[in-house]
């Protein structure tokens, strides 16, 4: 008996990706005043979509890229507005994914009659 299907694996992978995104955001915000610091963004959505369409032949990866936001006078380019937006959305997305995963488990429990 193996519990889990492709959907569950997809949800779990996406949870990991959003976790990584929050770590990137935390790093950016911690360096909001560090001179010369360039902020980063995590990308994974298109890679995941591609992997899902390929039906198992391609795997999804997440990558970090430069944010390319405007720099201020001491070379720092952290945009608090952008980071806050990314953070809030990431949090909500994570909650939704965790909820989806729990619902998969609930469905299995119902099938077991519990």
């Amino acid at each position, binding site marked *: 008996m193996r519990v889990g299907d492709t959907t569950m694996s997809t949800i779990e992978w996406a*949870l990991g990706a*959003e*976790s990584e995104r*929050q*770590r*990137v*955001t*935390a*790093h950016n*915000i*911690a*360096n*909001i*005043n*560090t*001179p010369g*610091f360039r902020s980063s963004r995590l990308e994974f959505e298109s890679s995941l979509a591609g992997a899902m369409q390929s039906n198992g032949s391609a795997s999804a990866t997440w990558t970090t890229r430069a944010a390319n936001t405007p720099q201020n006078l001491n070379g720092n380019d952290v945009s*608090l507005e952008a*980071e*806050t937006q990314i*953070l*809030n959305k*990431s*949090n909500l997305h*994570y*909650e939704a994914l*965790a*909820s989806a*995963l*729990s619902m998969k*488990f609930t469905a299995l*429990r119902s099938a077991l009659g519990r």
Partner: protein
Amino acid sequence: MALFGALDAASSGLTVSRVWLDAISDNVANVNTVRSPDQEPFRARMVVVSAVSRGATETGGAHVDAIANRPGDPNWIYDPTHPLADERGYVLGANVDLGVEMTNMIIANRSYQANLRMIEVATDTYRSALQIGRR
């Protein structure tokens, strides 16, 4: 530990902001500090900050490398009646610019709030992870 790593980075950001605020308040408190010319004048303090490398196991964040004196020429003040004045009547003032310090205070406070908010949201996220599979 690597678990809840976003909290470590945010907490390092809080520390950096707090150290900066401490330096700023020290500067503001000493804006009127004068010394006699045969001593070192009070020099405004500034924090030197750099980013901590972030990787698979390293959580990243920011770090205070040093607290340095703000460079610049000394602030000669003509005050012959001052007990510390030299024979020409000058004392050495502090090189604290209140305008700069007030601006920095607002920036440092804002960064403190931003890191605090990061901690709140990350904690919220981790809590929803702990609900997975619960009945």
